């Protein structure tokens, strides 16, 4: 014990280097995590706390908003997965195999620039696109002869679909960059050998690119799930979960309980449940994140 203590004293300069980090995380990370787990088992309005066991969790099946939010978030997540695995991957492979450094660079930049527009602006643009009277989409539909175009965000039958379609055609985004980084990492020899063997197009895609990108693909599948499980900014801005509960998602149920109904304990319980799901996914994910970090910092 004495020896360890002497080691610590000897290395005090190093601990001083770590001090700012650990002061910050103690206050702004560890404390809120402990608080969240504790308050998930309480009735809490932000001031008064009363322990109520698992009552928060037990009352979840009776919460119409939360119950409605689950199929919605599953649909949104599955759709996002489908999108993430198709168009950006196809575009990345096409860009990667273009002949000519300049044109490859041009398309890369072309699909990065839209990512610089703040996400809030994107959401507000889509709100305009979906506007029933003045919006881009319905103006177009009326132009080609539709008398009663859909209300999009205003109709429970189309609202969730409208949320899914935000960001069409979904190529300019993080996923494209991750796929391209993965392709850059494949040894050129492999492609040369494939060309000599006459493997191009589809054959090359299925026998070389798809297997060698499997790390990136798994990463994207898990990341997309994690993001979708907690995301609620777009529904908060565009529909507030409505009409009815047609676009309600768990994150928004949490938000509304905490900041509109002052039910902080119940909100913490929802947060804890979401976190457990996400934690399981993240543990699988850590391996792929580490490899990616090494690729980028190389």
């Amino acid at each position: 014990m004495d020896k360890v203590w002497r080691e610590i004293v000897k290395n005090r300069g190093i601990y001083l280097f770590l001090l700012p980090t650990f002061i910050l995380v103690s206050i702004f990370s560890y404390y809120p995590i402990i608080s969240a787990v504790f308050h998930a088992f309480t009735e809490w309005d932000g001031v008064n706390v009363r322990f109520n066991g698992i009552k928060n969790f037990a009352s979840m099946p009776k919460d119409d908003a939360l119950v409605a939010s689950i199929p919605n978030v599953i649909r949104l997540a599955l759709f996002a997965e489908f999108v993430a695995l198709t168009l950006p991957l196809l575009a990345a492979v096409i860009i990667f195999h273009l002949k000519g450094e300049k044109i490859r660079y041009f398309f890369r930049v072309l699909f990065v620039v839209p990512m610089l527009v703040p996400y809030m602006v994107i959401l507000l643009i889509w709100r305009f696109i979906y506007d029933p009277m003045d919006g881009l989409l319905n103006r177009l539909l009326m132009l080609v002869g539709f008398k009663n175009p859909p209300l999009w965000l205003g109709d429970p039958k189309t609202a969730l679909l409208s949320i899914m379609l935000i960001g069409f055609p979904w190529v300019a985004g993080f996923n494209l960059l991750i796929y391209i980084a993965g392709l850059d990492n494949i040894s050129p020899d492999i492609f040369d050998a494939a060309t000599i063997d006459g493997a191009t197009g589809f054959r090359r895609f299925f026998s070389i690119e798809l297997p060698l990108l499997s790390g990136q693909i798994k990463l994207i599948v898990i990341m997309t799930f994690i993001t979708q499980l907690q995301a609620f900014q777009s529904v908060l801005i565009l529909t507030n979960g409505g009409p009815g509960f047609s676009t309600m998602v768990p994150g928004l149920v949490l938000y509304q309980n905490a900041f509109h109904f002052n039910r902080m304990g119940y909100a913490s319980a929802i947060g804890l449940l979401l976190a457990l799901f996400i934690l399981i996914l993240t543990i699988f994910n850590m391996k792929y994140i580490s490899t990616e970090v090494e690729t980028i910092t190389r």
Partner: protein
Amino acid sequence: MSHKLSLSNMGGISFLVIIAIFTYYPFLFLLFTSFKDLSQFYHHFWTPTLPLRWENYYNAWLAIRNYIFNSLIVTSTSVVGVCTVASMSAFAFARYKFPFQEVLFYMLLILIMIPGTLTLVPSFILVRDLGLLNTRWALILPYISGGQIFAIFILRTFFSSLPEELFEAARIDGATIWQSYSLIALPLSRAILGVVAIMNVLNTWNDYIWPSVVISEDSLRTLTVGLAYFQGQYQTQYGPQMAGYVIASIPLLILFFTTMKEFIAGLTSGALKM
């Protein structure tokens, strides 16, 4: 052979061009509409019109300049904070051996796995109890605290990859950790710090939920929150509204075209953060 290749290039390019048209059309429409008054908007919905209503930009600028200013302050302070704090810790973890090193590192690593939804409510109450609601600290301190984790992860990988000879001589000469850090490590890490900085600029600049719950005072609102509010104010005045969106997009575009290489790396690694 070459004929076949250029043909495949053409197919690929047409696909990319179609995608690009769909991607960019809404932004072009935004740009055209931002120069229209209401009558131009209703009578010439699909086409650009003259005269250009520059006053839309003037009005939008007056409405959102303060939000941009707030975002600039919050983002730059947070980013400098993240780079300082994270590079110090990462350096200590990467180049030294000391008791409890592993435990401490895993205590940080585990935070990458904690989703923001778990801590949203308690963090809000914490910031309220610290008396920080409606101050810039309510944004800056949590952004530094949260942003440093992934930054430490990236920077540690980088510092570990530096050759030991660089530090050996200094260590033999009795250099302190501070001297090794500031005189040897930092000057070599400008590029990677740029990547970390840009990753954090994007996260802070785009964040909406957290600033919307801790800031209610209009004079302190950041850009994302201000834009949502601004949209409500200018309901159907599409010209000034869209001009505001264009202005809001300019700062990151400038940053991008001045730091392209770091920016793309920052974007890519930022995608890995939750």
